[in-house]
């Protein structure tokens, strides 16, 4: 017998967690707080120091733009798929998350609602995505965090910090929910020190064999962003041009992680 799916709940369970994890990963860096029960490390002070340094170094930036390469390893098909994209964030809560190749898709958040666009048959199309409301809820929460309001719910992930001798390290976000853990085992944020503390690589581990690695190849802090960056897909070319204009001095050399 065929089962007609309940699509809105489908979106909540499948699309939203993926977005939630990724956006938490991308936006929460530098503003997470270690709680006593949620931290497992051998050197609490170094862990606290890493998080504190990361938080302080990001505090002076109201706008951040990141150009990234994303590599998805899918063992079943024995393939690694590569895509390119960029993320723009502006305090208190504006976000532009765009994949630019080989497909084009875009997510915009204005503090109230999420708009999801895809480029199809030669033009941008606004999707009526059932997961948008849930994603918007997450964004609102993140906006609170960005403004220093830590009263918002932080129960989604257990945070484990792995500081290195040099003051750098890795922050693991482990889903607390069994349902989410079925799809994502762990999210790893790689923190580098120079020139200031920042996340330069994110690894999302779906299983022992499948993972997605996002390498932040270029990061611009407090850039003059193009008009309507957070309003329309039409500013895509201008946004991409911002990274070219910034030049090689802003390009990061990030080593690939060990699978």
């Amino acid at each position, binding site marked *: 017998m065929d089962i007609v799916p309940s699509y809105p709940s489908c979106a909540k369970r499948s699309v939203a*967690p*993926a977005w939630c994890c990724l956006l938490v990963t991308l936006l929460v860096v530098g503003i997470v707080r270690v709680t006593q029960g949620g931290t497992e490390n051998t050197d609490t002070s170094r862990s606290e120091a890493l998080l504190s340094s990361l938080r302080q170094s990001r505090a002076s930036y109201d706008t951040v733009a990141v150009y990234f390469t994303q590599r998805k390893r*899918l063992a079943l098909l024995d393939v690694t798929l590569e895509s390119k994209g960029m993320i723009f964030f502006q305090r208190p809560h504006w976000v532009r998350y765009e994949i630019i190749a080989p497909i*084009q898709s875009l997510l915009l958040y204005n503090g109230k609602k999420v708009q999801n666009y895809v480029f199809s*048959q030669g033009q941008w*199309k606004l999707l009526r995505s059932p997961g948008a409301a849930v994603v918007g809820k997450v964004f609102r929460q993140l906006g609170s965090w960005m403004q220093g309001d830590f009263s918002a719910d932080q129960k989604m992930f257990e945070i484990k910090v792995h500081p290195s001798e040099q003051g750098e390290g890795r922050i693991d976000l482990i889903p607390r929910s069994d349902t989410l853990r079925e799809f994502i085992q762990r999210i790893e944020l790689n923190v580098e020190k120079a020139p200031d503390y920042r996340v330069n690589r994110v690894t999302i581990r779906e299983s022992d064999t499948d993972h997605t690695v996002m390498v932040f190849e270029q990061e611009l802090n407090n850039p003059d962003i193009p008009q309507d960056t957070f309003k329309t897909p039409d500013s895509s070319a201008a946004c991409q041009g911002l990274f070219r204009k910034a030049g090689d001095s802003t390009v990061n050399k990030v080593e690939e992680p060990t699978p």
Partner: protein
Amino acid sequence: MVALIGLSGCARPVSLGRLIHDPAQQAKLRLGVNSTELSEGMFRTLISWGPRQMAFVELVKKNAQGGLSVAALTDVGSTLYAVQIDPNGAIRVIRKSLPFSDQWLLDGLVAELLILWQRPPANSHLHQLNPDQRALVLQEGQGTKMYVFDRSDRWIEYQRLWRRRSQCHISLEWDSDPLPKLIRVHNSKKHYRVLRERLRRSDGSIDSGAGS
């Protein structure tokens, strides 16, 4: 009123045309479905149901043993589903983050994608639907599968019928590549539509319709 008109349209039986006895032509059309030889395919998929839509990427890859692997990924890289089809036809859902049954996934999205890798059954019959179209038709009880070809013997359509009423209609748009450029699916039984845009040509080059 609109609903009534829609329902009456859906309920109209599909004509199977006139049976033709031409084994050579039947074999030629059947073997003309040449995507079965392709090692892989990659599509940008947009599914719509009611007012809602969702986009992802689907991949198909043939392994050395002749089996097929199929997967769907969101734009942020998470796996929506992964399915393995063994050469003997055994199917396993390896991973699924969609809240409907394995059978729903296999009978719907996966089956509709894999028609490109499956030749029309050898025991299907040749029918003349109209002066411009012929079809390979397989009737099994109340169910019917139709592979429709145009005047130049190009495969342009697939239909799955129940009691001659369409349950799933798939149209194919081609260019010079062995994989179709566009696939449009209307599954009237499960109430969804799918648009698949080819992302990668068989020579490995990237198509521009869904990307930069």
